[in-house]
């Protein structure tokens, strides 16, 4: 065989897509027959522009696709820092800016796009930037060092990215958007409003409906502000333009190739331009007349062009423009027909303004298919929803479950194998499973990362199908965890067990799920635990607002906040105990327990206690028990703060708060820690400067010491953190999980709690505080409410048909001068002589 003539491909631009083209060419054997020359204008090899903002944190090296600076394949030559000035389709040559002329057989334009800078006066002043390259970011960083205020023109996806960067650089930041909402291309009005609230809560100023008329020039000739039409001027020493992008098609234009109406090199489905030896891929190309400002379609074009050069049939026929990103900690996703433009399309909206979550599904007229959607604040469902749109699988019966906060949808929807999971790299579910089975990995998740969660889930499911499976459902009646149930109840606004079980469960419940639902309803509705059908959901202690004892009697524990009690009140307790013959004991929780009350005596005992100013101590509930206190600075010679006052205040603030397990607190007046605060779910220890807050302690069978969450807090901050911590626990912990194991179960553990509670990284703080404020405002004493309600009192009888006959099973013996229960050996009969009238 004669030596083959090797052809030459010249690639203009070494950005994300140019790089992918070379990778595909090497992988698929195109370099067996072709040499490749890549000419890139930037000083460094291709890097991950999608995560450009992380440059500030991780540096250029970490973003690079080619840290070595060259390709392994010697048939690829990389020429960097060099601009292509033009090309001639007649002679098939390109001209480099150094004067070098390079011959080509095939020319691939991968020149990307450039930020559009509107020609307002002052747009080129020093202090004005765009946001596209590492060099842009370096320049912005330098300018920010001497500035305090910045502004971004453009509230789209990239503009918000840039605004985040300015904020990270420590600038007070404004976002100026012409449209009535942020991210106008991706999300609808309600979604944009939710996003704006999030962003404003981070301290940025958002100006929508705002037209920039000029960049204002300061005395030193640098930018100092933005003049807006019909609004006050905004100060800005650093101005970033992010008002859209324009394809870089100048080379093609100069060479006389066809361009699309709105810019971009017009190419066919394989990427060929009007000259058969010139190709265009990525953001500079307009297949079928349309340009795509995302990387996934560019990658697809690169693969297709390589395929075409190898004689393959590949074609690019349009792309999924779905986006998911995290902006300043806020999830935003938009996919499919997000604006419900399909005729007859229906919208299903879940919105929680306080939580800052907005979710919309667009559904086909007949309700069988998902067409698209918008997710703001929580995009965890994106991984399962987007492939549902792409693969057209039938919607489940309760489509709203797909956007309920807990992301249970992701667990239930069986995606078909061909469903595309990673759109950046076109990886299907089948590909991922096959790779997992072979112990290999795919490219899924390696570009924008938005499919990572779903990819992980598919791999986990695969492994689970091979062996062990974890079932976190609470019982046979609900295929949900406590946290998921909490969210389901919140979303649907359920008010009764019947509603919950009909919508989400099977059967009629049991002793496991009923108390859980009772507790969730109590946390969300703050009503009486004996209200309506909720009574029958309660464990016996809650049902009778007292603790059942071994012989069927009850104990009564009035609240004694902080362990502080007046002699008069002590006397009342003593009198009640004496009059009803109750066994009396000081508890380990700094209060007094009265044992041996018959059920029918409870109302009368409560009446006496309530009249004397006592209320329920919730010793029976999965609720706040006590906030234990030492005597503190008032009396103790070592005390540095008033621990008693704080303990009382905290106990009164959180009394009645229903939670996944019981909650206990403690406050010590100095580091000697006499209140054992660090053995409590929340513990506070006084310092000279304020209070140290510890979380996640308990005694019991698996003791845990509480760990420091934040130090030297003033009272107000302490209470704010406690509000957030307790509500976060209530919302997300499992049934009967105390705070210590709950913290361990969180991804990130105590650091996670700190992020949410102290740093407010999720922006949840104000919502959690508001939920606690609701609790505090609606608290009432359950004992008093019961003795005031004849209907509730009806149940407090020994026998429904003989209310005056005491239960003969209950008898006592004497022990150390007080009563003690006597065990019964079997059912007791009173004989057949009790007359019973018709009821």
């Amino acid at each position, binding site marked *: 065989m004669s030596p083959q003539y090797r052809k030459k491909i010249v690639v203009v631009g070494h950005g994300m897509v140019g790089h992918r083209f070379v990778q595909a060419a090497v992988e698929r054997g195109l370099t067996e027959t072709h040499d490749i020359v890549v000419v890139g204008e930037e000083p460094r090899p291709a890097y991950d522009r999608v995560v450009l903002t992380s440059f500030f944190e991780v540096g250029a090296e970490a973003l690079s696709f080619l840290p070595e600076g060259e390709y392994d394949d010697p048939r690829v030559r990389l020429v960097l820092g060099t601009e292509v000035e033009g090309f001639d389709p007649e002679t098939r040559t390109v001209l480099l800016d150094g004067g070098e002329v390079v011959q080509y057989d095939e020319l691939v334009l991968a020149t990307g796009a450039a930020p559009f800078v509107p020609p307002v006066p002052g747009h080129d002043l020093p202090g004005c930037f765009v946001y596209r390259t590492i060099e842009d970011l370096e320049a912005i960083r330098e300018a920010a060092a001497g500035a305090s205020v910045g502004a971004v023109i453009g509230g789209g996806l990239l503009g918000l990215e840039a605004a985040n960067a300015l904020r990270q650089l420590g600038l007070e930041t404004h976002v100026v958007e012409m449209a009535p909402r942020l991210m106008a291309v991706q999300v609808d009005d309600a979604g944009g409003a939710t996003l704006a609230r999030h962003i404003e809560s981070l301290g940025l100023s958002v100006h929508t409906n705002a037209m920039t008329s000029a960049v204002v020039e300061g005395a030193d000739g640098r930018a100092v502000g933005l003049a807006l039409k019909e609004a006050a001027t905004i100060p800005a020493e650093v101005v970033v333009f992010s008002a859209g992008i324009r394809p870089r098609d100048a080379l093609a234009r100069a060479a006389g190739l066809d361009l699309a109406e709105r810019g971009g090199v017009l190419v066919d489905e394989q990427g060929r331009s009007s000259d058969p030896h010139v190709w265009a891929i990525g953001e500079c190309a307009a297949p079928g007349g349309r340009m795509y400002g995302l990387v996934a379609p560019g990658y697809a074009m690169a693969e297709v062009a390589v395929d075409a050069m190898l004689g393959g049939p590949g074609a690019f026929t349009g792309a999924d423009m779905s986006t998911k990103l995290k902006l300043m900690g806020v999830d935003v996703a938009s996919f499919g027909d997000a604006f419900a433009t399909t005729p007859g399309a229906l919208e299903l909206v879940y919105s929680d303004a306080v939580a800052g979550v907005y979710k919309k599904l667009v559904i086909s007229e007949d309700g069988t298919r998902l067409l698209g959607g918008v997710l703001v604040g929580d995009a965890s469902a994106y991984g399962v929803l987007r492939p549902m749109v792409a693969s057209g699988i039938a919607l489940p019966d309760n489509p709203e479950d797909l956007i309920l906060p807990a992301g249970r949808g992701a667990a239930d929807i069986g995606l078909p194998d061909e469903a595309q999971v990673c759109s950046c790299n076109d990886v299907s579910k089948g590909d991922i499973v096959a790779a997992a089975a072979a112990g290999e990995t795919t490219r899924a998740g390696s570009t924008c990362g938005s499919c990572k969660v779903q990819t992980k889930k598919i791999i986990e499911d695969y492994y689970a199908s091979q062996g062990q499976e974890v079932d976190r459902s609470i019982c046979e009646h609900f295929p949900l965890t406590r946290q998921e149930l909490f969210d389901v109840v919140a979303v649907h606004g359920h008010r009764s067990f019947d509603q919950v079980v009909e919508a989400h469960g099977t059967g009629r*419940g*049991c002793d496991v799920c009923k108390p859980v639902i009772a507790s969730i309803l109590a946390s969300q509705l703050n009503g009486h635990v004996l209200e309506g059908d909720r009574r*029958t959901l309660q464990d016996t202690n809650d049902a009778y607002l007292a603790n*059942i004892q071994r012989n069927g009697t009850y104990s009564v524990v009035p609240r004694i906040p902080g362990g502080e009690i007046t002699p008069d009140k002590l006397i009342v307790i003593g009198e009640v105990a004496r009059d009803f013959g109750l066994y009396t004991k000081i508890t380990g929780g700094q209060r007094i327990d009265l044992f041996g009350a018959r059920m029918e005596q409870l109302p009368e005992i409560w009446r006496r206690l309530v009249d004397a100013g006592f209320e329920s101590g919730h010793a029976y509930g999965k609720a706040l028990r006590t906030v234990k206190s030492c005597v503190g600075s008032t009396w103790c010679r070592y005390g540095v703060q008033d621990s008693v006052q704080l303990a009382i205040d905290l106990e009164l603030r959180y009394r009645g708060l229903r939670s996944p397990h019981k909650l206990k607190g403690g406050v010590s007046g100095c580091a000697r820690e006499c209140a054992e605060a660090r053995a409590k779910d929340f513990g506070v220890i006084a310092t000279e400067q304020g209070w140290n807050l510890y979380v996640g302690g308990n005694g019991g069978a698996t003791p845990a010491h509480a760990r420091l969450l934040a130090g030297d807090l003033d009272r107000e901050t302490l209470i704010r953190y406690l509000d957030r911590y307790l509500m976060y626990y209530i919302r997300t912990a499992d049934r009967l999980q105390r705070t210590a194991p709950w913290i361990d179960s969180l991804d990130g553990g105590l650091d996670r709690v700190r992020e949410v509670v102290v740093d407010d990284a999720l922006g949840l703080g104000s919502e959690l505080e508001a939920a606690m404020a609701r609790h505090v405002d609606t608290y009432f004493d359950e004992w008093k409410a019961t003795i005031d309600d004849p209907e509730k009192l009806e149940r407090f009888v*020994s026998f429904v048909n003989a209310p005056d006959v005491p239960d003969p*099973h209950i008898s006592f013996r004497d022990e150390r001068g007080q009563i003690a229960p006597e065990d019964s050996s079997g*059912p*007791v009969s009173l004989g057949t002589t009790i007359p019973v009238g*018709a009821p």
Partner: protein
Amino acid sequence: MTTSTDRSTYTAVCRLDQIEVEGGVTALVDGAAVAIFRTHDGNVYAMSNYDPCSRASVLARGIVGTRGDVPFVASPMHKQAFDLRTGQCLDDADVRVPTFDVRVDDGIVLVGPPQEHP
């Protein structure tokens, strides 16, 4: 109107509406404590109130629900489950609680003689 109920062996104990749906009451029948439950599907069941596991008279205060198709009450003391229809303990084959015939007549609940179970 007359009913088939034989008043001599049945004791009227309360109105049906005095028993909450999925709740229970205790009644005194021939000197013994009987727990009477009302389920969601409208059935009424009666069994001894005495929980043989904890040896306390408390079953009427338990939570009522279903295990599969079996209506049951969970003892409020240590949560053992009892089949409302037969009194069989679902957690311990050797334990069973006596059950009683029960009827509802004109909105009145009547408890009859102990039931025989195979």
